[in-house]
């Protein structure tokens, strides 16, 4: 599904990703974890074709280059921000993004209805997006990312600001999507919820720290949970590095210039439970 070979990316000489190689198989939920500046957003943007790597090669869907029309049509994206048009209704928002992927007419109508049912927003489909709660807006964003039936769904902090119950509901939807053959690439600061994924990648300063099934990683580090495993993996990689530094300090890694000004979140990656 996604083949990444020896990819490097730097911003004005500042390395963001170092010689990163990765294989992400189809129909899996793949969690990307790491503190701010670890290179998560850079990796996502390289996969989506918004950025070009300085070196190395990325191939999607059996050989397509990122950014090519054939590849982008098969990708659904849900950004961190509440990226909806507040002056449009929920249904209009979903239909608008469907139009952007070339959908129209009865097909678009049917798919819009289907994805709104999937995220349980049918009853609020005629509400203006600006009047929705944060959780509802996230559900509407998921619906609009799914309307064109992507094979790869990229979710950047999809549950940020979402209450715990709804967060569980989101992961139920993710699991169902994966069972339908969709590959999900999820970044999150909630490390505990990443353990619900099939595979997890720990990123730090643009390099892979660890990769594997959540239960394997927990076992490997003899940790109580994935969060503790992440902290131990970080300490092992950088002797003397403590949890607070991982949690609060920007290690100088690789968000692009401008970073992610909208989030303002403190990474939870290094905070011990």
């Amino acid at each position, binding site marked *: 599904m996604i083949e990444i070979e020896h990819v490097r990316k730097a911003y004005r000489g500042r390395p963001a990703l170092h010689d990163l190689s990765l294989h992400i198989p189809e129909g899996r939920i793949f969690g990307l974890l790491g503190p701010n500046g670890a290179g998560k957003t850079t990796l996502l943007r390289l996969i989506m074709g*918004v950025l070009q790597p300085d070196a190395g090669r990325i191939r999607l869907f059996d050989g397509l280059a990122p950014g090519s029309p054939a590849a982008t049509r098969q990708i659904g994206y849900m950004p961190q*921000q509440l990226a909806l048009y507040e002056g449009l209704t929920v249904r209009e928002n979903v239909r608008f993004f469907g139009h*952007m992927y070339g959908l129209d007419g009865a097909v678009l109508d049917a798919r819009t209805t289907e994805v709104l049912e999937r995220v349980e927003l049918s009853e609020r489909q005629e509400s203006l997006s600006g009047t929705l709660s944060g959780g509802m807006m996230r559900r509407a964003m998921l619906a609009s990312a799914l309307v064109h039936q992507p094979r790869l769904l990229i979710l950047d902090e999809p549950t940020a600001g979402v209450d715990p119950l709804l967060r569980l509901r989101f992961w139920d939807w993710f699991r169902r999507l994966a069972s339908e053959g969709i590959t999900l690439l999820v970044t999150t600061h909630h490390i505990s919820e990443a353990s619900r994924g099939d595979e997890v990648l720990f990123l730090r300063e643009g390099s892979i720290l660890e990769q594997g099934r959540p239960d394997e990683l927990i076992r490997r580090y003899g940790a109580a949970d994935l969060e503790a495993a992440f902290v131990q993996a970080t300490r092992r990689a950088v002797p003397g590095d403590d949890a607070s530094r991982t949690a609060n300090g920007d290690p100088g890694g690789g968000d692009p210039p401008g970073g992610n000004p909208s989030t303002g979140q403190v990474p939870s990656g290094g905070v011990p439970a």
Partner: protein
Amino acid sequence: MKAIGWIAVRVILEIVRDRRTLAFFFLVPVLVMSLVYLALFKDETARVAVVARGAARLFVYDLERALEQEKDVVVVPVDIPDDVRDPKLIQADIEDALRKGQADGVLYFEESLLADRFSGKRGTLHLYLEGSRPTLTGLVASAVGDASDDLAASLPVVIDSDCSAKCANSVNVKPLQIDKHYLYGSEDYRLIDFFLPVLLPFFVFFLTFILSNIAFQRERVRGTLERLLIAPLSLPQVVLGYMLGFLLFSIPQAAIVLVYLLALIGFPVSVAQVGDLCVITLLMLLIALLLGLLVSFAARNEFQAVQFIPLVILPQVFFSDMIWSIDRFAWPFRWFAMLLPLTHANIATRDVMLKHQHLWQTWPNLLALLAMFVAALLLLAWVGRRHRDMLG
């Protein structure tokens, strides 16, 4: 009470740390005021030329001296050969000189002036006025009126047959008759008729610029632009979609301004003139849209986007021939004015509305607007590509 102080401190800290806001806040008013001062520190002066034939040439020197005594008037030469003596040809040459902008008014002494005065007539001066700028027309008419009174005093005394000796010794100086001929407009032409037409391109530019600037900035900040660019769409497609949407929205707005303008204006306007105005307005709409999008790329947030508004709008108010004639500016400011789209739109609008010119006759301004549209489009493509590379 302390909380109020801390809120104030927080506001100041944020502004101080945003260098661009700081620069806009303090430099924009000083910059714009300096530009206006440097461009306009001399009062507007009207240019008057004097043309005389035959024995009437005798009075030219005195009249020119009298005119030079008048405030805000200068005497300038016009290019009319001496050997042209046919009054109709002279009139055509005078109108041509006015059309070319060589003078704002031309005073013409007919050959028969002296003979007329000797024969007891008042004698007639012909004042040809360019007429499109009421302030200059007023300056010329007033100066010529005063100067002709001085001249009349030096001319042979005209005494009516029924004038007594006492009359002849006192108010025996009959004023010269001044016949005014307007190249554009008429005596009924009001100051407001000069300003109203250019309010159309101004409002269209101002409102469309703000709308596109803020709306596109919101698209960037809330992340929907990123979502669009990740869809199988190119930035030019997104921008063209934006332009089309704004255009369809702005056209009714421009139509309302135009209809209201036509209702307020004090002279008849033909269908052809309205059509020409629509072309100029459409070009201004497109340029304002592109500039709005460009500025939204330059700003990091909506706060900064708003700060660009005075920087883009104010110079265009002061330097676009809207209030003050750019012909009176020192050359660097004249060149600066020519770089502003509103300058060309205003000149073209007045050419069409006040001078009754066809659109093709004001082609240099149309060409300039077209060139600015293309330049803004290319610049937007470059900025957009750069932005995409740095997305995030």
